[in-house]
């Protein structure tokens, strides 16, 4: 959470784009613990998690100009990079191909900035409440996919349910989390 006197994430990222090392350090201080926690949860090893986080912040340093506000908050962008890199490592371990990003080279879509505000304002209690309110099977499906890097088919096999059920659970679970953010943005 930022105060009025602190620069916003976007201001810091713009400063990183101007090669200001202090801004990179400030972004690191703000988000590396979150990114490290995510990578550690996904990979299960400290060295790999640290490598992912280092890759992410060096990518921020080198590619700050590639950030598009329309694609979501800086926090989402950073965590998405950490997530993608950890997924890549999980897939390398399993000898699976990397899936392409559908938004990789598309520039003309828009997301209202209120999503950024919602992600910035959401409290730990609200997150815990939202995750706790998910039906166990939906939460497990989301966690196997997001943290475990499992494909929908693998999850169907693990849970012993049809593929369509997994797809439905994924979508319903995300809809509920989206509803949480929509509620926060008011």
């Amino acid at each position, binding site marked *: 959470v930022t105060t009025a006197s602190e620069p916003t994430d976007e201001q810091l990222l713009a400063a990183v784009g101007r090669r200001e090392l202090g801004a990179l350090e400030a972004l*690191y201080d703000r988000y*590396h613990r979150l990114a490290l926690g995510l990578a550690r949860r996904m990979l299960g090893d400290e060295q790999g998690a640290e490598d992912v986080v280092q890759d992410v912040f060096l990518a921020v340093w080198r590619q700050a100009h590639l950030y598009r506000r329309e694609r979501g908050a800086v926090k989402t962008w950073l965590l998405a990079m950490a997530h993608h890199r950890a997924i890549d490592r999980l897939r390398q371990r399993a000898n699976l191909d990397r899936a392409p990003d559908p938004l990789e080279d598309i520039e003309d879509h828009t997301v209202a900035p209120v999503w950024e505000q919602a992600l910035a304002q959401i409290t730990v209690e609200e997150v815990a409440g939202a995750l706790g309110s998910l039906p166990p099977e939906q939460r497990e499906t989301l966690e196997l996919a997001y943290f475990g890097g499992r494909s929908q088919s693998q999850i169907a096999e693990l849970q012993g349910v049809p593929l369509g059920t997994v797809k439905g659970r994924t979508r319903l679970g995300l809809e509920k989390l989206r509803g949480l953010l929509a509620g926060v943005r008011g």
Partner: protein
Amino acid sequence: MSNRPDHVNQATDHDETFEELVAAQAVGSLGSDDANRLKDHVRQCARCRQLLAEYRSAATVLALGLEQSPPNVGLKENVLAVASREMGAPQSLPPAPNVVVLARQEEARPGFFGRLRLAYALPLAVLFVLCLGLAWWNLALQEQLSAQQTQLERQNRFIAAVAEGGQRVPLVGTDRAPDASGEVVQPVSGGPPLLVVRGLPQLSQDQVYEVWVIAGGQPTSAGLLQPSDEQSTMVRLRHEITGADMVALTAEPAGGSPGPGPTGPIYAAGRV
């Protein structure tokens, strides 16, 4: 996925099946085939583009529910060292758009008060630029102070580790760095080892030193190192040396070795 409904192949027509693919993509569980198909569809479907961005934000909530890791200062030092190395010449101060706007406003207001304000515009602009310069100078001083505090903190940790009788590994420069020497100390009280090294030659812009801890013939990267202009450089390693056979420094591409082991020549090494 082989058991995908046939109508998913129609990339342009929106239906709920695509929304399921969007959800799967947002959590990273879509296979390459479906992801390619979704990409074709998303190009033409504004609704799915919007939904994908929103689902990604929603998926971020899963990460926000995790316990945050404790701060990792050693990793930050590595990141900043590489970034600093890659940084080019210092950037000039950005233009001050407010000054330009102020001047334009005054030009649009003729008359006595307008001329009076115009007379003040130049000194105000100079004052503004001066303030901007002072703010920049203050920031630079703060960064310098912060860097010195970090270095002092590392030196104190190193001295404390030596004083408590931690395991010490002397490093000797190879033919490529005959003036290099250093030492690694593994604190008895636990935590990451500390490395101090001096006399390493400066590498090219696209290279960095990488520290390796070698055990049973298997090298493990323990961090990146960017020698400063000062006499010695001190970093915290990411891998303990307890049980290892050797510590070595090699020159690697910026960002570190592309493989699991070293790819460049050894500049300094020491037996544990």
